[in-house]
């Protein structure tokens, strides 16, 4: 009896699924009304959930690259607004074999404009990489490569 009930239900399930499927176009099963909604709906819908900006940053201007006496300097200015955690800024100038790093720290809950000028005794293709680290996460603020000739 039980086995027959289960077998019957199984047959009905498979048959209904097939009929509602794409092989039977005459039967149009309702499409998902939320198919195009955002999948994240938060704890009580999206309402009331504000963005919590832990960090925002903006490169104030393009870095100024200068060459003098075989050394390269890249003057970089960044404006940083921190959230609940301090942010460590790291300005790295490097080529394939050498690198130099300048650092700065912005305390929590502040807005500051920081300028650093990393200097590297090297020419050729150089990379300037500026990152901001906060609370275990790393953000690339700026990255660029440029060629500096010996002249």
């Amino acid at each position, binding site marked *: 009896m039980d086995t027959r009930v289960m077998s019957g239900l199984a047959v009905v399930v498979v048959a209904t699924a097939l009929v509602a499927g794409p092989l039977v176009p005459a039967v149009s099963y309702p499409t998902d009304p939320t198919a195009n909604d955002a999948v994240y709906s938060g704890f009580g819908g999206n309402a009331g959930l504000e963005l919590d900006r832990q960090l925002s940053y903006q490169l104030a201007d393009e870095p100024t690259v200068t060459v003098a006496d075989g050394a390269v300097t890249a003057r970089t200015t960044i404006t940083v607004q921190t959230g609940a955690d301090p942010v460590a800024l790291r300005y790295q100038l490097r080529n394939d074999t050498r690198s130099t790093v300048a650092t700065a720290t912005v305390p929590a809950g502040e807005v500051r404009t920081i300028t650093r000028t990393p200097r590297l005794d090297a020419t050729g293709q150089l990379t300037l990489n500026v990152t901001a680290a906060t609370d275990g996460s790393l*953000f690339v603020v700026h990255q660029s490569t440029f060629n500096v000739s010996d002249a």
Partner: protein
Amino acid sequence: MSRTRSLRQVFGRIHTAWRRWLAPIPTTHAATLFLLACVVFASYWRLDVFIVDTVAVANALANVADGTLQLSTVYYGPPDAQTPGVYAHDGRLYGRNYGHVFAALPILLALRAVALVAEPAILLAGLWSLGIVVVGRRLATAFDTGLVAPTAAMLGGFLFVLNVVGGAAIAPRMFPLVALQLVTLLAAGGLVATAYLLASLFHGHRVGIATAVATMLLGPVGFWATIPKRHLITAFLVLLACYCFARSRVSGRLFDRALAYVPVGLTAWVSAPEGFLLLVVLGTVDFVTADRRDLRALLAIGGVLFVSLLPFFVTNLLISGNPLQPPRLLTSYRGGGATVTSQPTVAPSNPAEPIGGADPPPQNGDTGGQTGGGSDGTGGDGGATDTPAPTDEASTDGTPSTNPIGSVIATLAATLTALLDRVLSQFERGIEALDPQRLYHVFVRSGRIPGVDYTQTGGETIELTLLETAPLLAALVAAPGYYLRRWLTQRRLRVRLPSVSTLRTDPARATDLFAVVFVVVFSLVYLPRLPVHGTVTVRYLIPTVPLLVYGVARLAPVQAVVTEATDTLARATLLAFGLGLALLVAIGPVFQPSVGAVMQAHAVVNLATGGLVAGWLLVRPDDTRLGAVALACATAAAALFVFATGFEYFADGRRYVFAAARLIEMGIQAVA
């Protein structure tokens, strides 16, 4: 020919060993409980992303189904893939929890295959109804009553019709989410079945079944059963390891002992730090309590462990190039849209932490690398190149290694050292974090917890403590008092702690040791991050919960209640649940509280029932009727929390997989 024969012999031996291992296991009850749990959990299955970190895992699954580990295409979330749980390496983006992803892959492929000829939503509804029918049939056999089976058959059939008529198709873009949720649901079902197996191993079927049902109804399990986070999966694997360990102590067989290490590799594949913790605890306790430590035993265990870790190693190797470096140890990606160009370019201003309810950022300690990703939102080839800089803080000359084997060994050793260093520092932080206020807000009472960012949850105080969502665990709080009282009343002057020889000869004591050490170590590691928003039931500690329930089942008064007052316990639980539900429906419309307020109301009620359990154990532990009422109230309160959160509090605007759930939600609102 001879090779074929020897292969057959090997497989034959494995098959025989497996059957011998399986033979003493009460698979019928375990299967029934597994099915029951799956049916219950699926009843309030919601198809969406509850915690934003899931977006990264869902994107990872969709991309793995496309044939790539990296996030080449962003299917969910912001187009630049900037969600928590995304990591960057060599300018490519990756998700995490690849063990979860690969477990969901066959389900996803099956869903896609089914969708070619049939409607998956109807098949899922059918499976749910068939599950109800099978559970009814098994319960009818177990209780020898004729009414349950036909009632379950009618209910199953009715619900199927209801779900077909009131339901809708599942959009193919949601299949990865469905697959991930199904894995979590099956793991939750497996967790319940394993809870039964573990408890029944030492205390018989009744205690086993009661433990399983209690585990199923606790907030930390029931609430997260269909939310595709890693916690329930690792909780299941940890409990499975514990059960295999317990069985190995009962049977004394090396095969059983080696099997306990299989979940270690699988746990690491889902969450490397948790796998590492499991390995440390299991290895230590196993070594201390083992009756043999010869080379053969160590080789067998090592072999099984290595094989179980292979998927983890291969995945890491393909992602980071280092088998010991999982995605979680890579740099967290928080956008930035950096591109490599010949001219200096300005990266866009970056609002970090785009949406609430996320896991707090992991403490990588890895700030030496560069993150990158495609500015086109694909995270692919247009991403930042990550040429390793020769130095960090000073100008030095780089000297690349010329010995590849030496380089590999050095890399592995450095990763292992970094991992150990990280875990040890976490322990250190955990011990430093042992301040009463933190412990109080993690384990006892939440309220509005200082330091928790409630803006992430719309200002609602929905973060509860462990006891507030699992009040049954109050028995463990009272356990020392109970033992002290028993010691005083029995006038036994000597306190006898289990010796190492006892641990070797007593399987239950050895298992207790594993449970205690794991709970302490695991809690210490996560304590510095707690309390925190988005955990609701302190979800980081979920892997400890089944072991804590096992601890409750180990208490003699609890066993006495379950075996001597079974009927009272069952009836009182149903009655308390019914009364609680009626009260909830009656009070709700009068006060119209916010979600935070009702969650706090549950917290207080649950704590009160926990107090009842603790009071019973401390004052009248021999009164089994009182014990039954106390345990029933605590179980019913936890179940009510799971029911209300599943069908009402967090239901607004969400899509249930089964239309019947929406009907229940509407029914509650109509009655209210």
